């Protein structure tokens, strides 16, 4: 049993069909309800549909962006209040008012999100909770908004001479809205944006290094989630006819959360199922508990919510959706478990060393300086990890960075690629200053990296991993994705180019397997393929040889030579010194954060400081000199 919350789009292929079936089933059930149910049940259904929209927004926020909001009711209330003000005080009609209400809420979400989304995890959740409380307080304190009693007299909507004033009428008005909401949400989940956000959940630093601007995407999803809440809010205002500060209340935010979680955060239609389940339970418990316990008054149905939330989280973290996919998988007899003994080697196409690979138009001519590092320094507390490091890398060369463990190689890499902010110094990539900015800036400048401790996107397939690498080479945004049509062709092109790249690296057969199921060595190759998908001018590789077999190492070395021949610049940190000396055009040696040597492999091999650093001996030591002599080609 998985203990993590599943994420939207995790098993992409399966979920694509699963969601369509789920949405279809939900649509049928929703439409069937008015045919069979009594008016009071349909009344519950109206609230379920209204809340489903807000819960759907929250489900997107949690599933896509991995963020919990405890203030969804705040946006619900902003939408409802704006609608109420426009309709009652300015006599707007319902539809244009709701458009403005949604726009106002989205603007509010943007203003709230810009500072808040710099926070993570608990802090963000509790800050959104604080936001909800502030909305409640402001509504209570504002005379314009009717203080504690709120705004009255919001009429039921009228369209084409028809008034939607019975539960059934209103219910049928809402069903298409919810279906539209589901369809848009599903499209976004399946899009380039959804894929990038899934990657961010798995490894933010890796997604950033592939050019994904995580902050921007998070803000977008946050605003989108608020938009869903505000649509729900406007529908709520019209149905109830009155809106008061309770609409922003914490318990309502909890209810939205419960709906999203119960339905299953890993699915878009789950929020709708969850909404119906929770509203049904709410109504049922309200009737049931006072009968069982005669003295019980007030919100006693909360006890059911509490028990439900905890038991779901412990026993069914994927919600009802997990039951559904579990059942489907059992029926299909899924046997996708990996073969533990399967650790065959990736076979690269046997091509001569110097055939250029991935050359492309517009790449800087060999010898053009690409990366310039000046005086790069990092201090952690009192320790100087990297001290005044300089390096220039030109197009079409391989530069190696070597040094004993802990010499500061990876720290230098992290600073160059933007993952770590330097204490001092400059990094310029193709004319753009990148130090202290995020890795996606580095990626935009045409450079990316791999990681020593693999940062594979664990919930995606091998193909999905590589497709994230094409993020910057495709452009469909949230809106295009939601409307699907313009994005579809681009998606096909991205998938095609990703598959080509996988074939090139001998990973074609693994394309549709989950990346984490691959042996260690091949996961490294997936990372390299993913980086190459960016089509970079500069590639930083952190210990690419580690964990590879002898054959795989030779093949990788050949690949790197071919990339160099194609005009790419490559910087690699490597522990396997001999392999590096054979491969690199120039070698920089770090010791204790200081660059103690820079030169051709030959020069470095004979450098007394290098010998001392590696061997801890003075150069006149017989053995060391002997090695140096013998090692020279």
């Amino acid at each position: 049993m998985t203990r993590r919350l599943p994420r939207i789009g995790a098993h992409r292929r399966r979920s694509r069909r699963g969601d369509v079936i789920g949405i279809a089933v939900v649509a049928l059930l929703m439409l069937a309800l008015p045919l069979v149910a009594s008016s009071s049940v349909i009344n519950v259904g109206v609230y379920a549909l209204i809340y489903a929209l807000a819960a759907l927004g929250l489900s997107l926020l949690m599933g896509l962006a991995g963020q919990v909001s405890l203030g969804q009711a705040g946006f619900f209330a902003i939408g409802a209040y704006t609608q109420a003000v426009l309709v009652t005080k300015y006599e707007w009609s319902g539809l244009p008012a709701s458009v403005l209400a949604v726009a106002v809420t989205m603007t509010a979400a943007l203003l709230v999100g810009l500072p808040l989304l710099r926070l993570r995890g608990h802090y963000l959740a509790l800050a959104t909770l604080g936001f909800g409380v502030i909305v409640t307080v402001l509504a209570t304190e504002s005379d314009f908004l009717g203080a504690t009693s709120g705004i009255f007299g919001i009429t039921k909507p009228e369209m084409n001479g028809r008034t939607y004033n019975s539960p059934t009428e209103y219910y049928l008005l809402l069903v298409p809205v919810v279906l539209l909401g589901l369809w848009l949400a599903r499209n976004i989940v399946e899009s380039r944006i959804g894929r990038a956000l899934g990657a961010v959940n798995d490894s933010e630093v890796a997604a950033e290094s592939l050019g994904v601007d995580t902050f921007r995407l998070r803000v977008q999803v946050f605003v989108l989630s608020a938009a869903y809440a505000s649509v729900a809010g406007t529908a709520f205002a019209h149905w109830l006819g009155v809106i008061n500060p309770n609409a922003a209340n914490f318990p309502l935010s909890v209810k939205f959360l419960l709906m999203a979680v119960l339905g299953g955060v890993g699915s878009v239609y789950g929020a709708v199922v969850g909404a119906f389940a929770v509203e049904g339970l709410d109504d049922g418990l309200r009737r049931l508990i006072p009968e069982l316990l005669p003295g019980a008054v007030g919100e006693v149905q909360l006890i059911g919510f509490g028990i439900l939330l905890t038991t779901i989280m412990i026993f069914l973290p994927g919600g009802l959706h997990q039951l559904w996919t579990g059942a489907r998988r059992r029926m299909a007899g899924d046997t996708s478990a990996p073969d533990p003994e399967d650790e065959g080697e990736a076979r690269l196409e046997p091509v001569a060393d110097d055939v250029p690979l991935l050359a492309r138009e517009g790449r800087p001519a060999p010898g053009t300086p690409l990366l310039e590092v000046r005086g790069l320094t990092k201090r952690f507390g009192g320790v100087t990890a990297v001290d005044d490091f300089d390096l220039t890398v030109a197009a079409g060369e391989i530069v190696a960075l070597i040094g004993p463990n802990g010499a500061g190689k990876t720290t230098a890499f992290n600073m160059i690629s933007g993952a770590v902010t330097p204490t001092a110094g400059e990094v310029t990539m193709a004319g753009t200053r990148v130090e202290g900015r995020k890795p996606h800036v580095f990626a935009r400048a045409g450079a990316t990296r791999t990681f020593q401790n693999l940062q594979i996107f664990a919930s995606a397939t091998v193909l999905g991993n590589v497709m994230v690498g094409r993020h910057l080479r495709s452009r469909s945004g949230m809106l295009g994705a939601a409307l699907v049509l313009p994005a579809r062709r681009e998606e096909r092109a991205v998938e095609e180019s990703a598959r080509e790249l996988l074939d090139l690296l001998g990973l074609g057969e693994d394309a549709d397997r989950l990346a984490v199921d691959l042996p260690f060595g091949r996961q490294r190759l997936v990372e390299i393929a993913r980086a190459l998908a960016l089509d970079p001018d500069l590639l930083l590789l952190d210990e690419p040889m580690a964990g590879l077999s002898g054959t795989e190492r030779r093949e990788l070395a050949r690949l790197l030579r071919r990339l160099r021949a194609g005009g790419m610049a490559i910087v690699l940190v490597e522990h396997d010194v001999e392999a590096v000396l054979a491969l690199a055009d120039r070698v920089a040696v770090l010791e204790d954060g200081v660059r103690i040597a820079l030169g051709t492999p030959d020069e470095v091999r004979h450098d007394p400081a290098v010998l001392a650093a590696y061997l801890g001996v003075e150069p006149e030591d017989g053995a060391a000199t002997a090695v140096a002599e013998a090692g020279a080609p």
Partner: protein
Amino acid sequence: MSLEVRGLHAGYGRLAVLHGIDLTAGEGELVAVIGANGAGKSTLLRALSGLLPVTSGTVHLAGTDVTGYGPEKLARTGLAHVPENRLVFPSLSVADNLVLGGYTRRRGPASARKEARDRAMALFPRLEPRLEQAAGTLSGGEQQMLAIARGLMAQPRVLVLDEPSVGLAPRLVGEIFSALGKLRDDGLTLVVVEQNARAAFAVADRVSVMDRGRVVLEGDPAALSTDPRVSGGFLGGGFAADADATTEAAPATGATRAADRR
């Protein structure tokens, strides 16, 4: 045998990392495990000390089958693990770090605890004046010494160390390894995982070389250091191993082979 590992398989989730490791260490023996990054060395130690569940295979500690023990129980049974990157408790004083090192012996006689502490201080006299200092303010070398001393406070039968040389200047590496040699001479069993093959070869009684989750070579350091597979760098020897390698081994190194191909 103080430590006996047979057919050990372990991994992370569905990803198998160790494919049947055999490893033994007799009483008073210092065994070094070397290999490149990603060879599975740290995974081996994590499985040994119970941080990672064992998929199959057995681990015996001084004759007791400890397979499947959690780290807390293993610590009580007599295996102390000095983790990679030292992991001292930074805001606690050096003295408190040592006290916590003896956590499993907290109900034992105070005299035994004091003796363990005196021995650790004798081994690393540099720590003595810093006892009241917060451990986070120590230098890297001192933190490594503290991590080892903390491990010794548990009065273990077997001490396993994960990359004690990481990030240390060569002189400090020498100091740490000579301390390990002294512990061995006092009869403690040690298993040291290292990338710095040279340092490990200098003190080890026996060496196991790991590659991609398997022990591919095993033997005494003198014999292994001349083995071209070790000095060639593919198995994590790198430059460092070359220092101990004799000149006749060198022509087979990766560099020269690669040069031949060119």
